């Protein structure tokens, strides 16, 4: 790994096709900077992307990457990390990918606590399919498939993570580049599953959860003296506070033990002998 890795090394030569002004630009820049700052380089980094606008990130970044099936980014990333504990693994996707079709995996990836980061570009809308309600859309948000609004409360992904036994829960805003980058960096450095929900506004289909809305309403936990991310109760308070939008690290379990340490998974599993293992006949003799 070279020491002079720049964040632009993580950038591919493919021009993003996101709409001008899309929050995903800022989200991706922060991810690339955080990866470079944590001493990673493209050859030892694996990015797994979901489906949706956010899923295109694997194309615009440069690293080992797999753009998978809708909703399955976390299982894919889990497999990569288990086979290769030596590789930095980052999963990225959108709110539909992570909290709707992939919600079942989210719960279990969180509690499995594999040492990886998960960045969700939450724009509270389905963008790539041109503007349908997402699991984080407001209950009165009118869309082509929900003309009167979904009439159901949005999923609180942070609360879902907390209830699932998360060891790191954070939220950031794509437009607050420096803070976003710092928060993603903390997620990467966390020993375990580093989850960041990123407010990544959709300028084309969501006229409610806009840049202006977040600028006006965002509270940075860094400036809240009462908030202690290592304190579960303190985390619970901000996560369940539906009156405000927060950014910062809500919760971090200081005693987090990642999956590979719990299970003693340390080997690079790609290294195997040219034939059966030396003592493989023992496997046969077991059946005498």
């Amino acid at each position, binding site marked *: 790994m070279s020491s002079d890795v720049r964040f632009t090394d993580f950038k591919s030569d493919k021009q993003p096709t996101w709409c001008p002004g899309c929050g995903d630009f800022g989200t991706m820049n922060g991810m690339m900077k955080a990866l470079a700052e944590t001493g990673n380089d493209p050859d030892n980094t694996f990015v797994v992307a979901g489906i949706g606008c956010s899923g295109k990130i694997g*194309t615009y970044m440069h690293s080992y*990457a797999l*753009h998978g099936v809708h909703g399955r980014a976390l299982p894919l990333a*889990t497999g990569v990390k288990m086979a290769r504990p030596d590789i930095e693994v980052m999963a990225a996707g959108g709110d539909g990918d992570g909290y709707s079709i992939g919600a079942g995996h989210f719960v279990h990836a969180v509690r499995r606590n594999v040492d990886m980061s998960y960045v969700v570009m939450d724009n509270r809308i389905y963008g790539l399919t041109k503007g349908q309600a997402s699991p984080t859309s407001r209950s009165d948000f009118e869309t082509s498939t929900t003309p009167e609004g979904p009439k159901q409360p949005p999923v609180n992904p942070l609360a879902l993570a907390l209830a699932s036994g998360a060891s790191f829960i954070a939220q950031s805003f794509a437009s607050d580049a420096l803070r976003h980058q710092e928060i993603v960096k903390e997620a990467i450095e966390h020993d375990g599953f580093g989850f960041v929900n990123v407010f990544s506004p959709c300028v084309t289909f969501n006229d409610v959860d806009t840049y202006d809305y977040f600028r006006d309403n965002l509270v940075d936990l860094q400036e809240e003296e009462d908030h202690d991310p290592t304190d579960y109760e303190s985390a619970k308070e901000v996560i369940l506070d539906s009156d405000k939008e927060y950014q910062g690290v809500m919760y971090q379990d200081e005693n987090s033990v990642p999956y590979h340490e719990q299970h003693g998974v340390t*080997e690079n599993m790609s290294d195997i002998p040219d*034939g059966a*293992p030396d003592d493989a006949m023992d496997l046969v003799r077991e059946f*005498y």
Partner: protein
Amino acid sequence: MAEDLNWAVGGEAGDGIDSTGKIFAQALSRAGRHVFTSKDFASRIRGGYTAYKIRTSVDDIQSVVDRLDILVALTQRTIDENLDELHEGSAVIYDGERSWEAEIPDDITAVDVPLKSLAEDAGGAIMRNIVALGAACEITGFDVEYLDEALEKRFGGKGSKIVENNKEAARLGQEYVQENYDLDHLGYNLETTDNDYVLLNGNEAIGMGAIAAGCRFYAGYPITPATSIMEYLTERIEDYGGHVVQAEDELSAINMALGGARAGARAMTATSGAGIDLMTETFGLVATSETPLVITDVQRSGPSTGMPTKQEQGDLNMALYGGHGEVPRFVIAPTTITECFWKTIEAFNIAEKYQTPVFLVSDLAMSVTEQTFPPEAFDMDEVEIDRGKLVDEDEVDEWLDAQGRFRAHAATEDGVSPRAIPGTTDAAHMTTGLEHDELGRRTEEEDERVQQVDKRNRKVETAKNEEDWDYREFGDADADNLIISWGSNEGALVEALGYLEEDGIDVRVISVPYIFPRPDLTEEIEAADEAIVVECNANGQFADVIEHDVLTRVKRINKYTGVRFKADELAEEITNKIAEEVPAQ
């Protein structure tokens, strides 16, 4: 025909039927006798009828038959369920002190042994089945010391006291029969040999093959009858630096395995029934990302939840055609338990050589059947590993484009692209389930689309030419009657040959382990007067495929009761089918 003994223990689920049967099978194996077992069981933890059946002989045996000689019956239902198979030379061991009054036909020898009381004398009622095994040893003239060895293996981990109590229980059962019955007229006297055998089932063979082949990552979700592959690997794979993870569902399991494979590990998942339906979602991604992955389907009765503990070969079409779009793949169906081992190894090699999903299609019958083999049948020195076009850092250069980008999906002549795993310097690249260019980046350009579809299909053509896709053959190669089978029916067919020969019917058996690509059987079918395809499903999925290949009609023997073919039954079916005038449709 081998002189065989057919033995069974039956009762309710929860009665320890399985472990009792396994102990007796182990004892017979230790005595140098061949063993072939089968199970009647239901998908429940307690209650219902369950039985463990053993066919044993000093000769090699590969099937069950419709005959039962010794039955240990813990319930009346066990007797009722097996009445058709009992005969005048049969003996039924039961406990007359128990609350049920055994109704046993007069022509069958009833051996009333106070199993529970004698077990209590030995140290606990829990050992009543072991008392029955001791009784069975006496009736069959089988040296109880072999049973001792099996008890040591089974209970050794629980301390010498437990082992000694169990041996005592066996002795009490044996002595009770010796003192109270004269059963010499039954004429059972089990020979022993000096041969060493190992005793294992198809799922264990798949698990063992996976470790031998270098599989280090397994992700799965429990489902009957595939779970025992996961359990086998869980207990052992960490000794080899690997890991098994229990996923939250099959959608996740196959994606985890795919992630592991993408990262460079030899990875596998296994499932059955509805599990393979869920995994279908990801078949296409495995194929288009060109990731080597072994997907095992241990077939059970469908559709839907079907009969989860019953046999069927109903997933052939799913394995061949499952998934939207056109998904290149290989489909391999081992035909015996040893082949479960060897074909698993082959599946990993083919997956990596051609960077394509390989479906390893087994079935319930094979997964639960315990069978004896000489240990050389699993000679680990014979295991070869071929990792295909895995490139190291020195080879990366030749696969970079003018801008220095790694061509992970390079459209090569043989269709196989170089494969660089994470950590390989200067080879970082993406891939996607979207159609992509040589660099793995999304494209909808017509030329690139055609290039990538063609190169993926070209891999299959290359494999067709470079690998052996042979069938296995038994019986008389010049016979007029040709029987074609796939999967686990081979053993019963091979034994059926003996019965047919006695009746003067010559048969050639072709057992096909390769479903795709598969051998072309045109010449073989044209050379025969009768061609009959045998399979455990109702619609004849393999027969359809063969008819399509050869453009001719074949006759069909289909069984979909949920029970595997038996040798004697199959001989009769074949005889009848040959006599049939018109091919059945």
